[in-house]
């Protein structure tokens, strides 16, 4: 009706396009350093916090950084392996 599923014309990259902020390797490196730094800083901050016990291990220094890392890794691998037998080409239902 009012919207076409695939508009024929999407403007494309011009051959002489100037690189943007995220294109510069220097900036990407800066972001990577900031990311690692923020993990380290939060890990360090956890040493100063006293939690009221919930799960049981909270007062192991840096507990929630480790918890977050572990939970994410487990979720990603469970999804990856569990999803394997369920994956189909995205036109599977189209006939």
């Amino acid at each position, binding site marked *: 009706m009012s919207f076409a599923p695939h508009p024929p014309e999407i403007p*494309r990259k011009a051959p002489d396009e100037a690189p943007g902020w995220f294109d510069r390797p220097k900036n990407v490196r800066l972001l990577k350093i900031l990311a690692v730094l923020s993990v380290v800083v939060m890990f360090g901050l956890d040493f100063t916090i006293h939690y009221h016990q919930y799960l049981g291990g909270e007062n192991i220094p840096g507990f929630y950084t480790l918890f977050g890392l572990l939970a994410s890794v487990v979720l990603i691998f469970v999804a990856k392996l569990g*999803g394997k037998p369920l994956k189909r080409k995205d036109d599977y239902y189209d006939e």
Partner: protein
Amino acid sequence: MSSLALASLAVVPPAVYLIVGAILLAVVPRTVRRPLSVLVAAVTLACVAGLEKGAHEALSFWGGELQWLDVDALSLVFGWIFALTILVWTIYAWHLKGRLELVSAFLYGGGALGVVFAGDLLTLFLYWELMAIASTGVILAAGTTSARKAAMRYVCVHFTGGVLLLFGIAIHAAAQGGDLTFGAMELDGAGPWLILLGFAINAAMPPFSAWLPDAYPEGSPSGSVFLSAFTTKTSVYVLATAFAGTDLLIGMGAFMSLYGIFYALNENDARRVLSYSIMNQVGFMICGIGIGTPLAINGVAAHAFCHILYKSLLFMSAGAVLYRTGRSKCTELGGLWRTMPWTLVFGLVGALSISAMPLTNGFISKPMIVGAAAAGMADSTLLWVAYLVLMVASAGVSLHAGIKFPWFVFFAEDKGLRPKEAPFSMLLAMGIVSFLCIGLGCYPKPLYDLLPTDMATLGFQAYTLDHVVLQLEVLVASGFAFFLLLPVLKRTPTITLDTDWFYRKGAPRFVAWVAGPLMGAFGWLSRSVHETVPRGLRYFAKNPGGAARLAYDRFLLGWAGAFRSMEAIDRAQARLQGDQGRYEATSPGAAWPIGTTVLYSAVAFLIFLLTYLF
């Protein structure tokens, strides 16, 4: 507007403004339609603003009463966010040319507002069905073949849910001596269980959940935004009203939050990712309803409010990309930060909010539910597990919605696409919602004041040092894990099978394998009864000798041939040819014309009547 004017708007339930508005929108010319849609939405919001707790209106109906306005604190929270969403959506959808989506959306929103302000189960049911029908119109308005098919599956699921709910209401009302009041229930009979099932289908609780990621990603760019807000959240409202404190829901909600993450991590289409993400977030709410303490219910209401804001913001961002590029699959997108920076920024606000980043609205609502689990976990293993699952799910939210969505759409591999920035109307709507997300994150008081239980009595503070540090720790850790495992998360052009497989592939296969041979047998039986046997009988009546000879020759050639001489067989074959010709010339029996059939039926009825009467 003065409070008196607001109160005078509120003599009629807010749903009525939207439904009357929808009828007006269907008939006015196109030039008036868009301003009128904004006006109607604004009046509806003003009407909600004028509602007072405890207000009550009933409508006479067939000798009974429909409690069509029954305002309590919980319904007011949902009323506010629904009316607000509709208003912002009318701005976002300013580009719409057709009337189907706009009219359907207003009816759908009217249904949702009707449900949250309904005081009895019959009113609730009527609005419930209005939502089912009108939301199907919103999906259909996308105008694609796949949307039409998805809409048909969607409406089948919701009508099934509606029928279960109606049965439940009837049984429950009979058990209560005809009392239809909608309030807290115990799961003590078939009625409440069926009602729960009807609610669960709309809440997208697994395994009744596949309709959501099947249908929502098929909507138009603006249609999906609207769809994401209402059906599951009205369900959260009715579950919180009827089944707060039901232990079953703690487990269901926790499971649901993980189920959503599992699929969201696997999916490729950005709008499918966001649809599964709805299930994940509603899982938190269902879990909170199961916990059922005042803090948990406050958390559920606040989280539903905040969730609608940031989830519609995420869908708006994905919708703007779809509107400009016609694409929503991660494998076909990437690198859009160059030309759609504002869409990126607003999408990021939504992504950070859903991840419950401090200073966004997710941070002031989700920890209430998690905190309610923590408060009771010392003496309940169930709550201990719930707390653990909700914490794991919190990390998972930032993975799939917080990082995956913006990363693959706006960054990742540059596909060379340079679409225009989203139209101003879309940016304006996204800007308003972003403002609300951050505004409530920094200053939650207006929302907290709306909640059912006075926050001062609950002893909950969102911004304490340990909350902030804990949340930031988990967020940066999960972000770090995402980029560490990026190769594992590489997108493929696939979908991941969900329970809709059973009705999309399983059922047709079942028909082919099991019912196929059965149909063949019935076909043979039908041909025998209607054709072979009557024709044989007619031929026999005309020519008994010929019929007997035909049967004998057929038997001879078919079965007993091996025992006869060649000459006998030749003779039989020659005879058969002649007989076969005469047999074929016989009609299979005259069909009775309709008139005769009706006459015979009338006579049969007359005989029946006479025997019945005397």
